[in-house]
């Protein structure tokens, strides 16, 4: 139960339009107060458990994203927040967009909406808790993702 009581998140803003970002931040503010679940927005990936990704992936931030993912110690959970992070959303066909987050790193839970309500994001965090527990029990490791090259072409 220890993991489920102290999920520390790192928020990664990829191609987001800021809509999702401000809602993620809103989750931490008094009206939604994610700290009730022990959530802390920790600045460094090395101390994080849940990676909250907003926005789709482009050719420049893909390496930042992979790098942060690799730096998070196991067990870790990736939460894709918003239409963009889940499927590429309205930007899915743009020339500089690779697609949703799941094109480059494994994603454990998706939050729908554009932008998602803070309630939906809290749902996502709560869903991530049990996934974290399961990963710990099953000793499931996140796989190391390669840093450069073979970006998946936009097709989602």
């Amino acid at each position, binding site marked *: 139960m220890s993991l489920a009581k102290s999920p520390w998140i790192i928020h990664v803003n990829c191609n987001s339009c800021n809509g999702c970002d401000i809602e993620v931040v809103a989750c931490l503010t008094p009206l939604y107060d994610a700290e009730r679940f022990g959530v802390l927005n920790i600045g460094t990936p090395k101390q994080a458990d849940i990676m909250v990704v907003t926005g789709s992936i*482009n*050719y*420049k931030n893909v390496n930042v994203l992979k790098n942060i993912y690799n730096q998070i110690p196991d067990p870790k959970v990736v939460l894709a927040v918003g239409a963009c992070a889940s499927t590429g959303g309205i930007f899915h066909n743009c*020339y*500089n967009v690779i697609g949703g987050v799941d094109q480059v790193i494994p994603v454990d839970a998706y939050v729908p909406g554009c932008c998602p309500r803070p309630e939906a994001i809290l749902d996502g965090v709560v869903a991530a808790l049990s996934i974290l527990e399961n990963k710990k029990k099953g000793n499931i490791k996140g796989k190391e993702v390669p840093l450069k090259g073979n*970006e998946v072409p936009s097709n989602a």
Partner: protein
Amino acid sequence: MLENEVEIKSSSELVKTVEGLKNDGYRYSTMICLKANDGHDLIYIFEKDNKLKNLRYFVKPGEKPKSMSGIYLCALLIENEYQDLFGLTFEGLAIDYKGHLYLTPNSPKSPLA
């Protein structure tokens, strides 16, 4: 045609006009790049007392337009952007990102061209 638009014929005339506008107290607002007749149209937008003044300059295919960043420093960002998106080359940029302001080597080349 936009309101208050002046057609500029040569690159030296452009530099002179922009310098004149700066002395008149105009602010550099932005520049717009369009595809036109194989080349590109550049529309320079200036502003003073909430009125816009537009200069239109046609860049012939292969021509390297002069950068305005020597006159207005803030021009450098938009000029770098057009180097990325249209594959233009501006001469004399204050900071030159060489077509990699937004795009990485993996991204599509000059997507708007």
